[in-house]
């Protein structure tokens, strides 16, 4: 094992994700703690992506256009090969849809200590990771020991700007390792457009499972209409079919940053926070005074969302005449 920090560069549709740069910034800090260098693994990438990875001291490229589309089996095996070749001290992977296919796979295959849901990492004699668990209700700090480890990092845990540097870094190529071909990529399916674009709204009335049932979505719609806002929601409401997919805010939904984000009956799970934390003003209403959303909101109110909706709708309608 060396002292290097390896970052897995993530890309979709030819574009590197913000997470990649967040991890690179984090890696540079960690490398200064371990005395190693920052290495990026670029699997199925291209030259444009390479030129954006200047924050790394070295980029290991595995394959190119022929494996541009993510495949858990192929990319998993490629990452194993990079780790075997470079023997890093810490592997950083985004806690993203793709990252979830890679991190635990690598931990088992390369016998690495592992931590998930990470929001902070310190590297001394051992690597100490703080994870945000229980839907954001507890932070757990774990000692991963002095051996090599893999850490899945929540999006937004470090500023992306620290990991952005142009100019092509040094790079070397590694052959794509053979796999059994049990998973085959077929196609990407883009979402259907046509509904309200929640990323373009000044104000969002965002509802969560606290709304209770489908018929009560009307209550939020009435408030949104009075305010001239659009209704957005947390994932469970979309999964239940109470709101269209285009209204979903969060990790697998859309990232929004309106002037006002009014969160009603949303607990504030990390996957939701990821999508709305850069809103200018966040006001949260929740009956649970310990709801994690209060750690991210600028203003909070421990109250029943129905009471708030009703009173607020009346006041707004009155004001607007």
């Amino acid at each position, binding site marked *: 094992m060396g002292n290097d920090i390896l970052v897995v560069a993530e890309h*979709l549709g030819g574009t590197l994700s913000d997470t990649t740069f967040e991890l690179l910034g984090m890696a540079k800090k960690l490398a200064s703690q371990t005395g190693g260098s920052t290495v990026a693994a670029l699997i199925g990438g291209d030259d444009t992506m390479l030129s954006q990875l200047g924050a790394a001291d070295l980029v290991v490229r595995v394959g190119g256009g022929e494996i541009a589309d*993510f495949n*858990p089996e192929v990319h998993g095996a490629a990452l194993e090969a990079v780790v075997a070749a470079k023997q890093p001290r810490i592997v950083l992977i985004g806690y993203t*849809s793709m990252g*979830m*296919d890679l*991190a*635990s*796979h690598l*931990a*088992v*295959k390369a016998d690495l200590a592992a*931590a*998930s849901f990470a929001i902070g990492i310190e590297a001394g004699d051992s690597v100490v990771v703080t*994870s*945000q*668990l*229980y*839907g954001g209700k*507890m932070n*757990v*700090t*774990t*000692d*991963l020991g002095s051996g090599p480890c893999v850490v*899945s990092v929540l999006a937004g845990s470090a500023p992306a700007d620290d990991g952005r540097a142009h100019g092509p870094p040094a790079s070397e190529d590694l052959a794509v390792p053979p796999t059994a*071909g*049990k*998973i085959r*990529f*077929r196609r*990407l*399916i*883009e979402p259907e457009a046509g509904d309200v674009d929640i990323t373009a709204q000044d104000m969002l009335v965002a509802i969560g499972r606290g709304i209770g049932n489908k018929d009560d979505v009307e209550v939020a719609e009435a408030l949104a209409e009075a305010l001239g806002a659009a209704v957005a929601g947390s994932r469970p409401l979309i*999964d239940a*079919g109470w709101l269209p*997919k*285009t209204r*979903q805010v969060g*990790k*697998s*939904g*859309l*990232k929004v940053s309106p*002037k*006002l984000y009014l969160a009603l009956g949303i607990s504030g799970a990390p996957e939701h926070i990821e999508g709305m934390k850069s809103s200018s*003003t966040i*006001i949260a209403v929740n009956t649970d005074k*310990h709801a*994690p959303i*209060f*750690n991210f909101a*600028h*203003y*909070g*109110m*421990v109250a029943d969302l129905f009471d*708030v909706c009703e009173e607020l709708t009346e*006041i*707004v309608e009155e004001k607007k005449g």
Partner: protein
Amino acid sequence: MKLVVLMKRLPDLVEDLEVDDSGKALDAEFLKFTLNEFDDHALEEALLLKEATGGELTVVAVDGEDVDKMLYTALAKGADTALKISGTGEIGSTSHLARIFTQSLADRSYDLILTGVQAADDRDGQLAPTVAAMIGAPCIEVVTGIEHEAGKLIVRKEYSGGVLAEFDVEPPAVLGIQAARQTPRYAPVSKVRQVQESATLETVTLAADTGKSFDIIRMTPPETGAGAEMLGGVDELVKVMESKGVL
């Protein structure tokens, strides 16, 4: 198709969580447990697959408080066999749990293992890819759709912004389910009670295994830092909105 669903209970996150005197664990006294919501989606997707293609569905869980009820509920919803694993001792991590599940399935054949995409206490990784790596099977996480066609599976995986990727997967495989095609069904209490009287849970007893334990240094509720300024009523909320120029 032979289907297996791995299920796990979690503290109910709507309840207050307290740290115990060790400063490293949740205070068990106040915990209420529920089935991991993503495991509930995995079960629903497995039930839909069973209904569409025939086959057999086995649900598996490690013994603990309320686990019998969780397994009987799965039987009431349509699972054929419920397997309860005992003798394991305290489960310390996801990799520990994965090893227990793989040991308990060692003598069984299956085409597809489904479980939730994640659990809120996944300190060291997710169950589906960990189990898959241990048994050498292909795995896809964040799955929102499965079709079974001519011996292979067509699997949809979700990225961000509603973008999906579609893959062909050759069974036996492991899938981490984000959401079933429909809201998980509800089993009426009377049905669960009826199953409880007529069906039996199969049990496997494994030797205690302490697992790879990582040292938890501490557990704390997140610092609120410059957390929310708490408002006393809607009138104050209106003032904030006015001051921000949105009203």
